[in-house]
């Protein structure tokens, strides 16, 4: 509790937000605040300036794309996803996964942009976006650029969004034939992930992204039968972290299981 002194600004446009982020050293965007405010309470790592995105209503939009995918503004909350027909139609796994994140209050405030930009290894969305082949749009003073999810996550709390830049949009391509799946072992019911896996199946092949086993999601391309998936995970040379909820060995063991379960569940909701 009890934060260090911090500057606060609430810009009215994306351009102004980008300007504030660029001009103020140590500035960070404030979306739902469900991660960053908590981190600030510990005072260990703190931004100097918060740029509150609350008034950027364009970033709250969910829109179906012409090709059958879906675009999520960076400020879309988990609760919005839970009731979104567009998301349900395009990538239903996002609805299921959003419903497993934290609790009602956090889902009401927490945003997809915040989830991916904080990139805590236990977060649910990074593996889902990597498996699904999502792309992320980042705006800077010199315009915008698009980064594939598999290149977006750089380290714990580190992403391709650099100083003076802002993530504005996440685009999911249309669902391939086989569908998406997700599986996790969590601390208690719908708790923090101990290990997670997201899978997107296209015909005979699956893209599997593992969470909680490294600083960033680990992407594997594999066949869809259980033996292939397990073999792919074994071959990935995982070196997961140990903590009170599981040793590296336990996580390595679970990774193969949740990967197989994620692939097996792909398309169940589709």
């Amino acid at each position, binding site marked *: 509790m009890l934060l260090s002194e911090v500057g606060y600004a609430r810009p009215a446009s994306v351009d102004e937000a980008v300007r504030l982020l660029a001009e103020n050293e*140590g500035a*960070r965007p404030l979306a739902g605040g469900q*991660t*960053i405010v908590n*981190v*600030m309470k*510990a*005072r*260990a*790592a*703190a*931004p*100097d300036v918060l740029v509150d995105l609350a008034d950027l209503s364009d970033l709250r939009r969910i829109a179906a794309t012409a090709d059958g995918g879906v675009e999520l503004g960076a400020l879309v909350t988990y609760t919005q996803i839970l009731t979104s027909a567009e998301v349900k139609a395009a990538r239903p796994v996002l609805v299921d996964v959003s419903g497993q994140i934290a609790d009602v209050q956090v889902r009401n405030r927490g945003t997809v942009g915040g989830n991916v930009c*904080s*990139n*805590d*290894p*236990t977060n649910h969305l990074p593996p889902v976006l990597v498996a699904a082949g999502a792309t992320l749009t980042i705006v800077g003073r010199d315009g915008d650029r698009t980064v594939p999810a598999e290149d977006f996550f*750089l*380290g*714990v*709390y*580190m*992403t*391709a*969004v*650099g*100083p003076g830049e802002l993530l504005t949009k996440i685009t999911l391509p249309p669902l391939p034939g086989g569908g998406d799946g997700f599986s996790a072992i969590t601390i208690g019911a719908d708790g923090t992930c101990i290990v997670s896996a997201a899978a997107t199946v296209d015909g005979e092949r699956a893209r599997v992204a593992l969470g909680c086993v*490294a*600083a960033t999601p680990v992407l594997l391309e594999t066949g869809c039968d259980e033996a292939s998936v397990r073999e792919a995970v074994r071959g990935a040379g995982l*070196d997961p*972290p140990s*903590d*009170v*909820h599981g040793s590296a060995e336990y996580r390595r063991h679970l990774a193969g299981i949740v990967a197989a379960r994620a692939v097996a569940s792909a398309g169940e909701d589709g």
Partner: protein
Amino acid sequence: MKVEGTRSYAAARERVWAVLNDPAEMAGLMPGVESFELVDDTHWKAKVKVPLGLGALRMSIDFEKAESRPPEHARLQAKGRGVGAIMSMATQFHLSEEGNGTAMRWEADVRILGQVASMGQRVIQPIVNQQVENVLAALDARVMAKGTETGAPPEAGASAAEQGIHPGSPEAYSDEPEGPTPSA
């Protein structure tokens, strides 16, 4: 937590040593150095603001050069204090000639104590790896830059970022096979 690795430079051993043996140069390799002060030949202090994505971790760090055998071996100790965090690091490196270039074997034993360690157990290891990777990337750049330099080393306090290395840049995050590998 121990991290270690090896690294190769297309530069003469003396040039690599010159960077590693100079406190001001070393300070320049660390991310987010705000101020730097030489106490004596073997002791120096730095105030750093380590960028951690969500915000910066401020620390005051005391360095001591514990051992130095030019141009091949040195051992450093660092003790840092921040809000709710105590960091201690013992690091050493060994330089050997490798063709026309230089090979560096290095290791660092990093311990984080205090509330931060308590809260951050599951992310400390990857964060330390990231920070070490940043320093190594900055070192790469610095060694290469030094080859083209004629004048004095850069001002104390030039961080990796100030040298144009962004944490998100390929230099910092390329899949270095020689990158840090946690052990023990």
